[in-house]
């Protein structure tokens, strides 16, 4: 036992706990239960160790030891690659795919969570060494709280108004409200679509949102989440029964056409509302300097 042992153990434990808290398996069932989780808990443990070990290294004036953190950065970038590759591989076998933007969003969050774990471990050990175990516990709790805040992004219901709308055919064209979705030729398919399909209109709340929800990846994420939560009326070999989202070019509204197995309007609105807003889809045209200069 050295003078730093307890503080390091504290940092590692608190970092690992923060990873456990952030590793919630929800309706997405990702990371997959058991093995996927073990991978991420192990990586979280490594991240916490690296963060915790950096403090005594600095205390002992071993400044070169900090370069170890660059190894950590490389390691976690690999985590992101690993997640991206796995998800892309399995995405082709989903009835309604996640889409690349959603996958990238998940991969980014896995990488960033490891950094949060590292900071938690670092600050936990630092405060243990600088003050005492009680201060360290307070700091750790604050860290856990901040990590929790940082990991939850905004949801779709915060940026759009969602309302149900009727679906109808005009000749062979399928419409949600006045938004054209696709051309369906066969009468039998039309009957199925009218029977099982549901339509929703997403109205953007401001100018920034128009671009964000127009993003094809964001739209695919909506379809995927709805299909996961409410089921989907389709199979391989029936491409005509594909949930789709199209855009009204005039005002940027989205026409969402879905084929859920649970046909409950309120549930569907709740599910669409809780779809995460993907980081890569967010645009802020209102922040544009050239726009504000002229305006």
């Amino acid at each position, binding site marked *: 036992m050295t003078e730093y042992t307890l503080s390091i153990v504290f940092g590692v434990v608190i970092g690992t706990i923060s990873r456990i808290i952030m590793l919630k398996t929800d309706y997405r069932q990702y990371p997959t239960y058991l093995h996927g989780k073990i991978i991420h808990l192990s990586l979280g443990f490594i991240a916490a160790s690296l963060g915790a070990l950096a403090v005594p290294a600095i205390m002992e004036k071993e400044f070169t030891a900090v370069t170890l953190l660059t190894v950590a950065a490389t390691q976690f970038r690999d985590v992101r690659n690993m997640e991206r590759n796995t998800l892309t591989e399995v995405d082709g076998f989903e009835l309604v795919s996640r889409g690349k933007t959603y996958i990238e969003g998940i991969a980014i969050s896995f990488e960033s969570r490891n950094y949060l774990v590292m900071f938690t471990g670092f600050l936990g050990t630092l405060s243990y060494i600088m003050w005492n175990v009680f201060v360290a516990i307070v700091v750790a709790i604050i860290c856990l709280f901040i990590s929790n805040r940082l990991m939850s992004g905004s949801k779709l219901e915060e940026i759009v108004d969602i309302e149900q709308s009727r679906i109808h055919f005009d000749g062979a064209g399928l419409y949600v409200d006045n938004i054209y979705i*696709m051309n*369906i*030729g*066969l009468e039998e*398919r039309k009957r199925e679509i009218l029977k099982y399909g549901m339509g929703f209109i997403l109205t953007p709340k401001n100018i920034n949102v128009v671009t964000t929800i127009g993003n094809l990846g964001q739209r695919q994420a909506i379809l995927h989440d709805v299909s996961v939560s409410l089921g989907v009326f389709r199979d391989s070999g*029936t*491409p*005509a029964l594909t949930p789709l989202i199209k855009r009204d070019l005039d005002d940027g509204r989205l026409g969402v056409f879905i084929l859920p197995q649970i046909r409950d309007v309120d549930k569907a609105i709740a599910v669409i509302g809780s779809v995460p807003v993907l980081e890569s889809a967010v645009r802020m045209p209102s922040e544009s300097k050239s726009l504000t200069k002229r305006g």
Partner: protein
Amino acid sequence: MMIEKAILAVITMNRQKVSGGAPIFFCDNKKELEYVAANIEAITDGIAHALSEEMFIIVKH
């Protein structure tokens, strides 16, 4: 081989309106047209789109 965005077949009741590269199926009535289109749709994993009352195309998306 993956084919994307291609017309796999044309099914029509009007011989005057079509010619060209894709396989063309001539049908005598609307019922036969629907029947052939539904079958080809299922077999090819394509979608039957109606261009008019008497002409369907099967498109791979």
